[in-house]
């Protein structure tokens, strides 16, 4: 049985998205900036896609900028807010310790320029509170940027509350909503969001396409210079097939949010309940405010990469925050940020589901994961030390 349980990494494209893309690769291949009819037809498709994306987010079409993906949108949003703040002498930015690297590395760059970056602690409940944001805001704060939901551990942040606090304080609020769009109800106006990043391939759309919502009037700084596309804020010929595919996938996802969430969260809860029975394990992330498809665990005494390889042999595609899977020497910064020590963070497993998964697949996962964990523990010197009392259990 082949089980794809890595939907937070990327999703399989929907037939709806593929069908929406094809005409723009075959017959309507024009450049939307061209004056002739083939170009103008592409322009119409671009406008329609922008309208669709705007409707899904509750904003105006002119507030949507298409980008190459979530990372570019995060970069542009944060750099823009920083440049605006700088002009006003404000150089304090609030974020969280478990942001995506697209946010954290951009903030790191600004820190080198002299910005003060304050990362909110996420150990309590594996989440932040709106009060933490409120307490951190200062007169010189130029940006609050927090993710909508965490990609590794699934925690959903109190975005409407943070939005309200930022509005009251007059501080721009950006959210990296890459994991949330198409899965959670988002309305940027009601939730007082000034900027929002999203990515097409997290909801069955194509890769290499994303968008940045920017509240009307907020001055954007260009990351890519060139032509006058995207109201002059993002140069480069628009990727029309991808934009149309993303818009179609987004509409489909947003039209089915509640039924998908009900189906997916039932599978999620089954996995969390079943895997919790593995001794010396712990679930990561906020158990109440949680993405419908996220299951994240740490298993003591084993290492995540070997776990993934053996699961792959059993047909299960998953991911881990272990150092060996990241290509760096440290385990996931998210797991460290919520207070997991290195020893335990190495033994992490993330299963991320979508509405195309089935209960039969969950049964397969629940059969295979405990077997593989037990097998790896049987050859682990760490596990032996834990069992013989030479080492103390952490979980």
């Amino acid at each position: 049985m082949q089980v794809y349980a890595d939907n937070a990494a990327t999703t399989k494209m929907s037939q709806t998205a593929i069908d929406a893309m094809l005409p723009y690769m075959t017959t309507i291949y024009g450049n939307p900036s061209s004056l002739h009819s083939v170009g103008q037809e592409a322009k119409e498709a671009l406008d329609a896609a922008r309208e669709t994306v705007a409707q899904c987010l509750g904003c105006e079409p002119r507030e949507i900028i298409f980008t190459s993906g979530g990372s570019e949108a995060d970069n542009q949003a944060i750099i823009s807010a920083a440049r605006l703040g700088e002009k006003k002498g404000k150089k304090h930015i609030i974020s969280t310790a478990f942001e995506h690297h697209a946010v954290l590395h951009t903030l790191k760059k600004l820190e080198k320029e002299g910005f003060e970056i304050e990362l909110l602690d996420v150990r309590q409940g594996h989440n932040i509170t709106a009060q933490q944001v409120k307490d951190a805001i200062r007169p010189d704060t130029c940006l609050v940027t927090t993710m909508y939901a965490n990609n590794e551990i699934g925690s959903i942040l109190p975005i409407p509350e943070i939005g309200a606090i930022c509005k009251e304080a007059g501080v721009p609020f950006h959210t990296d909503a890459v994991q949330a769009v198409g899965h959670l109800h988002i309305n940027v106006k009601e939730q007082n969001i000034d900027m929002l990043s999203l990515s097409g391939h997290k909801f069955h759309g194509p890769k290499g396409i994303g968008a940045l919502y920017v509240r009307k009037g907020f001055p954007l700084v260009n990351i890519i210079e060139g032509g006058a596309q995207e109201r002059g804020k993002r140069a480069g010929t628009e990727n029309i097939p991808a934009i149309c595919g993303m818009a179609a996938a987004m509409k489909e996802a947003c039209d089915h949010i509640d039924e998908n969430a009900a189906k997916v969260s039932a599978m999620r809860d089954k996995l969390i309940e079943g895997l919790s029975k593995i001794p010396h394990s712990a679930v990561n992330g906020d158990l109440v405010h949680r993405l419908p498809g996220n299951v994240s665990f740490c298993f003591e005494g084993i290492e995540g990469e070997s776990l993934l390889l053996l699961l792959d042999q059993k047909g299960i595609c998953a991911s881990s925050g272990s150092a060996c899977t990241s290509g760096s020497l440290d385990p996931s910064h998210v797991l460290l940020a919520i207070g997991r020590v290195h020893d335990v963070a190495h033994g992490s497993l993330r299963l991320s589901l979508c509405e195309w998964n089935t209960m039969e697949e969950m049964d397969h996962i629940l059969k295979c994961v405990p077997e593989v964990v037990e097998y790896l523990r049987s050859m682990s010197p760490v596990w032996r030390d834990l069992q013989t009392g030479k080492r103390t259990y952490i979980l």
Partner: protein
Amino acid sequence: MALYSEKVMDHFTHPRNVGVIEDANGIGEVGNAKCGDIMKIYLKIEDDIIKDVKFETFGCGSAIASSSMATEMIKGKSIHEAMALTNKAVAEALDGLPAHKLHCSVLAEEAIKNALKDYYDRAGLPYDEKDFPDCEHCEHCE
């Protein structure tokens, strides 16, 4: 999966010499759980010959495969031959490892040397400290 060679996957999924030797006369352990790799080697040496060898490893696929291959390469060999085993030879026997996984073969070499050192210590045999670099010199955990 193209990350690893077929040899690595074979030794990872069917590791040779896994376990413990209760009456081992040389035991070596290198690495630490913080950096994500621990290898423990048990040796049973008689008349300068490695009669039996077992390993336990906490680590990634290449760490388990390197342990398995290294134990296979020294089983039945003399302690002098075992001392001459290099991480390069382990990696080559596995048809290569990805660059960022080469430290796993280093760990295997060091685990075996560590166990041999323990054997020399227990037997009261003389040896040159320089032949036994400990894993602290490796940058992996820094």
